[in-house]
Every structure is written in C-alpha cells, then in structure tokens.
C-alpha cells in the first residue's frame, strides 16, 4: 500500500473545523498545516497557543476537550530547533488533531496550557526536564524524572546517549 503524499496546502485543508476556527479567530495564528497518514497537524504561532487550545476546547464544532499528550522534538542543529507537540482528542467527535509550536534554540519559552487543561501539568514538567523548554505560567515547573540537581536535558540531540562521564 503506497503512502499518499502529505498535503501541506492550507487552501485544501481549510474546511477542517479546527483550522477554520483558528483562521476565523486570528489568521496569523496558523503558520502552516500538514495532513499526512490520516493525521492533521497545525503549526500554531508561539504566542497564540494557549488561546488556540482554549478555543478548540470550547468551540462546539471542534470540541477537542481532552489533551492526550504534550511532548517535544529536537531538530538540532537546524533552527527553529524545538517543536512542542500537543495531541488533542475530541471525545464527543472521536477525532484527533495535533498542534505544534516551533521554538528557537536560544530561548525556548512557550505559554503553559495548564490553565486550559490542568492535566498538562506533568507533561509540561517532563518536557521541561528532558528538553529544557520553559513553560511560562506553569504552577510548579520543576524536574520530574531526573534528580533535582541534574545538569543538562537528556532528550536533547546534543546530549550523548551514554551521558557525560
């Protein structure tokens, strides 16, 4: 079964309820879209992520009321280096969508979505711990997996697999 090529043209995809809602709210919040392997990805502007999440959660046409996951991908050495990935699930509509925020390597800061979903708490702490992304507005941004006094962020690509010895 050959894979269908990914669709990245926003004109073809703007009928998707989540994209339509974000575009009608603030066209500059959507930086790009990708539809690949039956999964929708929306690249959201860094400053708009919290509002975008609240919007998609509360809009009855989208109803993405469940935050499945928050994680991060490090594209070292290219820039923007980090992609913070939010997997949203709509329990009533049985649909998923993925939001992504691109962050520069020099100052990876993004708004926390804990005010929207309190469940993001541990996920964001984990991303902070393992990638060094800072979530502004997080109630308790401390290391969660690694020891408190650990140096470095192990899941970054410039951190060796066997660690520093």
């Amino acid at each position: 079964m050959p894979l269908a090529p990914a669709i990245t043209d926003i004109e073809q995809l703007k009928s998707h309820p989540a994209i339509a809602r974000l575009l009608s709210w603030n066209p500059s919040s959507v930086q790009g879209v990708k539809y690949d392997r039956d999964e929708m990805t929306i690249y959201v502007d860094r400053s708009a992520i919290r509002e975008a999440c609240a919007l998609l959660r509360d809009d009855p046409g989208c109803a993405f009321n469940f935050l499945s996951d928050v994680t991060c991908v490090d594209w070292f050495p290219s820039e923007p280096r980090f992609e913070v990935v939010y997997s949203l699930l709509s329990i009533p509509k049985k649909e998923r969508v993925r939001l992504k925020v691109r962050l520069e390597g020099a100052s990876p800061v993004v708004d926390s979505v804990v005010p929207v979903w309190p469940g993001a708490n541990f996920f964001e702490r984990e991303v902070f711990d393992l990638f060094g992304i800072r979530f502004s507005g997080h109630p308790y941004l401390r290391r969660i997996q690694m020891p408190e006094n650990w140096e470095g962020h192990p899941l970054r690509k410039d951190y060796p697999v066997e660690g520093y010895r």
Partner: protein
Amino acid sequence: MAHLTPTPVLEPGQDRTMILNMGPQHPSTHGVLRVLLEIDGENIVRIMPDIGYLHTGIEKTCEAKFYQQVVPLTDRIDYLCPMTNNLCYVLAVEKLLGLEIPPKAQWMRVLMNEMTRINSHLVWLGTHAMDIGAMTVFLYCFREREEVLKMFEMLSGQRMMTSYFRVGGVSLEPPLGFFDRVRDFAGYFPERVDEYENLLTGNPIWGLRTKGVATITAEDAIALGASGPTMRGSGVDFDLRRDMPYSSYEKFQFRVPVAKEGDVFARYMCRVQELRESIGIVRQALDGMPEGPIKADAPKVVLPDREKMKTQMESLIYHFKIITEGFQVPAGEVYQAVESPRGEMGYYIVSDGTSKPYRVHMRSACLANLQTLPTMCEGRLLADVVAAIGSIDIVLGEIDR
C-alpha cells in the same frame, strides 16, 4: 479549573499540620512512588506525588536502536501489559510504513491483547484488595494469572517480556494445542470472576472502604487527562477500542462498562466487568480466527522464515540486511493510541527516513491518571490514599519510563 492544580507540598502551612513522607519503598505504592502528604491529624490537607525513581531513559535509548530493536524495550515500560505496548508501537511503525497486516495476525493481536488485559487486571485486583485488607483475593487472582502467564510462555517463550508482536505481524505461529488451552481457560474463567466478586462486591467491609471514597467528577477527570477505567468510572463513555478502532477491533462485539459514581468502588466495578468483556472478546477471536499467514508480505521489513532462509538466497540477503542495517521508514510522524488496561497508551514516533526512529515518545496513561490523586484525596483520611492509589492502577515503570 484552579482547584485541579495542586499546591506543592514543601513545608507545613500552619502549626497544626505536619509533613509525612510515604514511599518510595512502600508496599502499597505499587512500585517506587513517593507521595508527600501534609496532614492535620489523620486528615489530608495537601498531597503531592513525586515520581522519577524508575526513570531509565527508554525514550532516549529508542533513538539509538533500529526500529525492530525497540520492540523488546516497549515490553519493559509496562511489565503488566507488555503486549499492549508491543501492539501500540508496532501499529505506529506500520502506520509510518503504510503496511497492510494479514487478518490472522490482527486477530492474534486482539486475542493476546485481551489476554494481557486479563493478566493486568488480575494483578491489579489482587494487589488492590490486599492493600485494603482482603488477603484472599490476591491468592485467587494469582492462581488464574499463573495460567495466563503459562500460555504466554507457550506462545512466545517468555512469561512476561513477550515481544510477541513484531512490525508486520506476530513473531511465531501459535503452537499446537494453544487455542484449546485458551478455550479451556475462557470456559472456566467467568466462574472465577464470580468467585472474586463473591468475596468483594457484596462484602460490607469492602463497601465501607471503597464506596464514596476518592471521588472524582467526569469534568475533572477529562480536564486532568485521566483515561481508561479511571475516566469511565466517572461516567465518561469512551473506549478507544470501540470508538477509534485499531487492529480490527471493529469486528468484535463487546460492551464498554461505565459507572457513574466516580469512586473507588465504581472503578473496581468497571474493571471487573472488563474482565468479563475481555473473555468474551477472546472467545470471539478463537471462534473467528482466520486462516492464512501471520506476517505481512514485505520482505524488506519482515524477517523471513527460517526455512526459506536456508533454501533461498534472496531471503538470506534480506535477513542479513534487516539484522545489520535495519529497515528504512519513510519520513513522517504518527501518533497511535490504544486502549491499555490503564487507559490511553499512545506512541508518538517521528521518522527522518533512516532505519532508527528520530524520536519515540510514549504517552503514559498512568502518568496522566496519577494527576487525579490530589483531587481524589484532599480532605479525606490517610487510609483512603492507599485505596485511591490502588484504584487508579498505576505501574511506575510506565510513569517513569
């Protein structure tokens, strides 16, 4: 929403309270969970789970392995339901590859996935009951679990770390007599569930310890990202197997148990009902097991049979290539979620087109479920914490990874 974001427990708030450290080496924390409690007498003022004692960096390790070498690592994340993790990972890689899986392999996966769910729920029920003080149930549950593990060993050669599902199918043809043994088990298992229920469901002591204890509302459960029986115990009717089916689950008939109360007893009832539903799915899988190959026809991805390798040059070359350089996966990313015994287990895999995953992230159901603990416990008694921890069925291996 503010009430769902717990205040960190760092130092006592008032003169009346004290800080109590529970764990990480405590028999009722199901592994190495540390819980910091601020208590006023026996009442809990604040509670904060502290995790990370079992962090082994599996996500980082995955980035240095070939795709097929990650399968044994996924077993070790959640040692109570290894096959669910195998399934989720292989489904994600197959989605990246665009690989079609033969029906027999899919049905074997459903069959073994439900056996794994039974295995996991039996360990949960036994240990949860023992935490609360019902010793006997533990022995009963482990009697049946032993039989399940023996069947795992018969099938894959391993009791716990099975690694039975592989990218493109399953690793081995089920041995002679395996299906009969499973059918035997499916025959007597519902009676055994009756036995557990006789010991617990109507038991007044069990009722006192579980009913109305550690309640959580549906809205709070969704906001905190809880899934699985922890969410269904609060009345949210959502199960990935039924609502977003994978691996041909849409061809099976089963009911999703939901309870309204949101307390420890409701979660207990959900899981016990799930035991019965799972054995129903096992029976359907046995009855409708299709004939045919157990591996996809993709020589560049799936290891050839031993016999072919000895007789055909081409198979030998493919085998050598897969073992030494892995198989390449087209660039892209997928998020695949399955319904594990604990909730939504998800794998987010990013490929850069090489034979090693660029990033593997596991969405752990327990990590999200554990966040419900402060909401469940604050304002209640210290003894209820043990009941609450048991009722959300945590596995620390999965939380810390």
